[in-house]
Structures are given as structure tokens and as C-alpha cells.
């Protein structure tokens, strides 16, 4: 159950200590302008809304006040991994054209590569 979260800084804590921001697969567009409005719309409004394993940004407001990435299952509520958001590769923002065009379609791949990189399998 998603009742207990193993915060990397504070240990096992209950979910009501956390503010849940949501989907961590979203990539923030690097620039603001007419050419990136579709990406912004996508970033702000559109969700994969995964039925199953997902990664989300959680803020430990009632504890260390650090941003975390919680990987869990939206059907079983099982929590697989909790890691500091700062350790996460797709979190970096960038305005490079390559990233712009890659936005949106990459979350699944990012999730996989991140897990593999950290060797977190369960």
C-alpha cells in the first residue's frame, strides 16, 4: 500500500507527510515562446495517467522538505522505489532543440533507463 513511504532522508513515514505534485515523466520545455506553446500545453495539462507502474514527484513537506521521486503502482499501491529528485537524470531542464522534439514521447524510455541505471528492480 502507498501508506508508508521510505524517505531516503527520514526513513519510513506516512503518506500524509507528503505533498504529491504528480507525474515525474513530464519534461519542462526550456523556453517560453510561440514555438513551444504546444510543449507547454503538453507539460502542464496532458497526463499519461498510467494504469500500473508510474513515477511521481512527491515533496516531503512534513519532513526533510526535499523533493523525491516515488515509483509505485497505481493499481496495487505497491511502492517500488523512493529516490531524491536531484539524483534523477530526466529532471534537468534544457532548451536544446533535440530535447524539444523529443519531449512527450520519451517518458517510458526514461523511466526504464533510470531504473536500470540505478539497478532498482523489484
Amino acid at each position: 500500500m502507498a501508506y508508508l513511504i521510505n524517505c531516503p532522508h527520514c526513513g519510513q513515514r506516512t503518506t500524509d507527510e507528503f505533498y504529491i505534485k504528480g507525474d515525474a515523466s513530464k519534461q519542462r520545455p526550456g523556453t517560453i515562446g510561440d514555438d513551444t506553446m504546444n510543449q507547454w500545453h503538453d507539460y502542464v495539462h496532458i497526463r499519461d495517467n498510467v494504469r500500473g507502474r508510474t513515477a511521481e514527484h512527491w515533496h516531503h513537506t512534513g519532513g526533510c522538505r526535499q523533493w523525491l521521486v516515488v515509483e509505485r503502482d497505481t493499481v496495487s499501491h505497491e511502492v517500488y522505489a523512493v529516490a531524491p529528485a536531484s539524483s534523477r537524470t530526466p529532471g534537468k531542464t534544457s532548451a536544446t532543440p533535440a530535447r524539444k522534439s523529443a519531449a512527450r514521447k520519451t517518458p517510458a524510455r526514461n523511466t526504464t533507463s533510470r531504473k536500470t541505471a540505478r539497478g532498482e528492480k523489484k
Partner: protein
Amino acid sequence: MKYSVFSLARNALSGHKNWQPAWRSPDPKPEYDVIIVGGGGHGLATAYYLAKVHGITNVAVLEKGYLGGGNVGRNTTIIRSNYLLPGNNPFYEKSLQLWEGLEQDFNFNAMVSQRGVVNLFHSDGQRDAFVRRGNAMRIHGVDAEILDTHALRELMPFLNFNDGRFPIMGGLMQRRGGTVRHDAVAWGFARGADMRGVDVIQHCEVTGIRREKGRVVGVETSRGFIGCKKLGLAAAGNSSTVAKMAGLELPIESHVLQAFVSEGIKPWIDNVVTFGVGHFYISQSDKGGLVFGGDIDGYNSYAQRGNLPTVEHVVECGLAMIPSLSRARVLRSWGGIMDMSMDGSPIIDKTGIDNLYLNAGWCYGGFKATPASGWCFAHTIANDAPHELNSQMRLDRFRTGYVMDETAHGAQPNLH
């Protein structure tokens, strides 16, 4: 068979052995004019109004579970039309008007009870906000009145009037609001649609949407391929999952909302009353159980169950508002999966795919909307264009900026 006092008497004389099932359980036909995915309240209402208002009867409603097993049976049964925004209020008022005539209309006792809905306020600022909302309602021709504490003490002597930090200063009352027996809504619409020729097909899960040259030609289901000329999605809770089958990505997150009922007690709470400090709403069912709920759990979920911190939070809110609730015991709790949209308002619209229509994003306000949602969705499907009432419930409003955000929380669904 029409239900009436005569049919009751006739069946009583024959020992109640000759009642017929309220709807058929047909096998799917190879093709329909319209298929509705989702046999919840909204899907069944859509089929009902397609048949009744638009004369489109070659319709199937596909439900993966059983009727009444989803959100239509997982809410706190409240109906009201106390909305602020122009794009919302006339729609919900249409819904309330449909509720008012619904039982005669579909010949089924849904126990519509207009017992009044009261929203308490606890500060000057909150009173201003509720007066504003009441005025907006009255401008739209909807009944609304502000009750002072004297009137509230008469009506609800059990409220905690001695809270020094959050004193009850009054309430916004909509007398035409109330409750409805939710299962009977599903059954009544199903029976009404079935009587007009609609096939209500239970235990038939849609697993894919087949398209040719861009248009939808039918759906893959657990009972084989079924063709259709038009396809309507009304699968709230799982809207994103179903829409993905057609390549659509929606501005929706699925969240779990819990609700609770206490043991049955004598008549005590006559109205529906909501707390203005935390999020808590309560009414008493005709069986005597106190039916109440609060916030969504706050994390994305497709599990029809929630967690204990939210239970504790809801009960704390309840006790702060009605201290004597501590004497009642909770009998049952349940969870439903909500389509939480990015502005807290629903979507009834065309999709950009020619013959695919979407009804989604009901957040936790879908039950009261059931009749108008079906009515407007049927209109949208039949005419290939939205009705004026749902003309602002557009799918593209997030892109264009014409959002309808009643609470002004922005694109953060767990705050709506």
C-alpha cells in the same frame, strides 16, 4: 411492463412470482449505430436520451463489470446545482431539472429527495464568496439563499456552534438540492433504455478501438469485435485508458475518492450539509445510515480503495463540524476512481476523430450531473455538435485557455 400501483397489486395477487427482469441481457449484435463504452450512470443516461429524445435506438452500452458496480454506486448520492461559473451553472441546473422529473420520466423510483443542501461558512471572506456564488446562481435563475446562524440552529442543532477558531457564521442553502438513491439511477436508466430497444451488455470489456482511414469502425471486446457508426466514450475513472485505444491523450488524472456510511440510526440529519473549514459533506439515507465523505486521497490511483490517513482526515473534519458524530460507528467505506481534470470541470465534446465522442473528466462531481451529462452527450452524438449547455465543456479548452476552474487551483488535479 410499466411499474405502477396496478402492476404492484397484480403481482401481489400472484405471489410476486411473475415479475420480469428489469432489462434484457442480449448478446451483442454485429453492428450498432452508436456504441457507448461504459455502462455507468452517464453511459446509460446517454443511451436512454439517444433513444428517447433523438429516436436512435440501435444502440449498445458496453460495461466491463455489472451495472451499478462503478462510480454510479460509489458516491454520496448528492444532487445540487450551486455552481458559480457560466459554463457550468446552466448545465448543472439542467441536470437538477431533469432529476426533478426523472422518476416519472423513466418510470422507476429513484427516491429523489430534495431535502436542501447547505454549505457552511466560517469567516467574513468565506461569507462573501458564498454570497457571490448564491448571487451567481440567482442570476442564472437557480434558487439560493443565505441562512444566518439563527436559522441554522433551528435546522441543524447538532452543529458545533461553539468553535472559537472556525465559528459557523451561516450557510448557503439550495433547497432544491438533495439526494437520490444511486443504484436506482443506474437501474432506472438501464431499464428505460432497454425498453426503447437499447442493448445493455454487461461483462463486456472494450480492449481496443478499431479505426480505418481515420474513422472508428468498431471496438474489440472480450466478446469479440462489434462494429459501430459512432462511438461514445463514457468510462470516467478509466477515460485515459480507453481514450489511449484511439490514440488520444487526455488532460486527466485518475484519483481515488472514499466515501463512508455509518450504522443506521433514527432520523437526525434532515438536509445535506457541508463543512466550510475542511472538506466534509454528510447526509442521512432513508435507511438511517449517515453517508459522508471528504477529499480525494491525493495520489493517482486506479484501485477502488483508499488509505487510512484520508479516513482519519475525513472523520476529524466530521467531528469538528458535528461533535456528536463520535457516537456513531462507521459501517462501510468504499472508493471510486475519479477522472480528475486539469480545471475541475468535465469534458463532453467531439474529439478530432470524426465519429468518436468523449464524455470524461467528472472529477468527484459526476453523480449529480448524470441526467444532463447523458442528455448533452446524446445531443452531441446525435447532431455531431455540442448542445449550448455543454458548449464550454470542450476538450481543447486547456490548449486555448478557456478553462472553467471553479476553485482557481490551476492544473493540479489533486487540489480540485
